[in-house]
């Protein structure tokens, strides 16, 4: 993983695509990395958009949290890198999603 060759963005950049799937705003959602155990907002994840799809990695250890691939009319979502998500229900009113 070289941030020089593939500059990462962050969870905000993937939110438009992920909002197609999730009913809530993913950026404010807290998730736990299944590798290092760090708990962070998804907005803080390092996101690589220039792949065949989207890859989000833990900002702490680089472990893959999420992959999303759009393959000919099928959307493939791999969430293996996150142990759980915590939703802040107060965000639902005005997050605009």
């Amino acid at each position, binding site marked *: 993983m070289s941030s020089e060759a593939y500059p990462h963005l962050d969870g905000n*950049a993937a939110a438009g695509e992920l909002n197609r799937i999730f009913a809530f705003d993913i950026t404010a959602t807290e998730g736990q990395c299944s590798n290092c155990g760090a708990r962070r907002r998804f907005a803080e994840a390092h996101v690589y958009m220039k792949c065949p799809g989207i890859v989000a990695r833990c900002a702490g250890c680089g472990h893959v949290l999420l992959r999303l691939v759009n393959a000919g009319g099928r959307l493939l979502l791999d969430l293996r890198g996150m142990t759980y998500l915590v939703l802040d229900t107060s965000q639902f009113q005005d997050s605009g999603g």
Partner: protein
Amino acid sequence: MTWRTATVVGLHDETRTARTLTLAVRDWPGHVAGQHVDVRLTAPDGYSAVRSYSIASPPSADGRIEITVEQLPNGEVSPYLTEEVVAGDELELRGPIGGWFVWRSDQREPIQLLAGGSGIVPLMGMIRSRLLANNAAPFRLLYSVREPEAIFYREELEALSAKHVTVNYAYTRAVPNDWPRPPGRVDRDLIASVTWPANLNATCYLCGPTGFVETVADLLSMAGNRREKIRTERFGPTGERK
């Protein structure tokens, strides 16, 4: 989240390479300062490109939003939005997007804004939102730009400066006449002298190219700001974000 039709109703040049578009969006649900939209352009042959742009305008009920677009060399979308688009044109848009990199008008704590280049756009939305809401939260802005000519919203920032937001500039390539500092990037000394002291526990909003965000987030952290209080939004050098 569905794609909506947006009609271009106003165009305003901010700099030689950046333009603000006012869009009237059908069924716009309203937004919070700091959120962005995705814009989709589709060619006659069906090829489409999607790019994200931050909203520069404060929340309003009239179904209009403003985005400011910086033209990138060899970009697929930004040259169209900065040069070719005319009033009356229609674009496809989805949003508003994001609930983390936002400032809500009921926040009362001190706010530190830090912008690199066109990273000013969502932060301007926050400054305008604060003004509209008559919120007295103390705001400071540190705005890093290549040169004085590259400043967005220049006159508006000048008018708001001091009374509504304390504005400091960092020039990386060329400085104005009689400027006390040589051109240079944001560094530890500048962070120490113009941003809120860490003991005020300000919420920091940091937006710019990835390298700028990484560097400045580290500097804020070293100055004693807690990581949970530093909210970031990055865009890539070729990603045509913002």
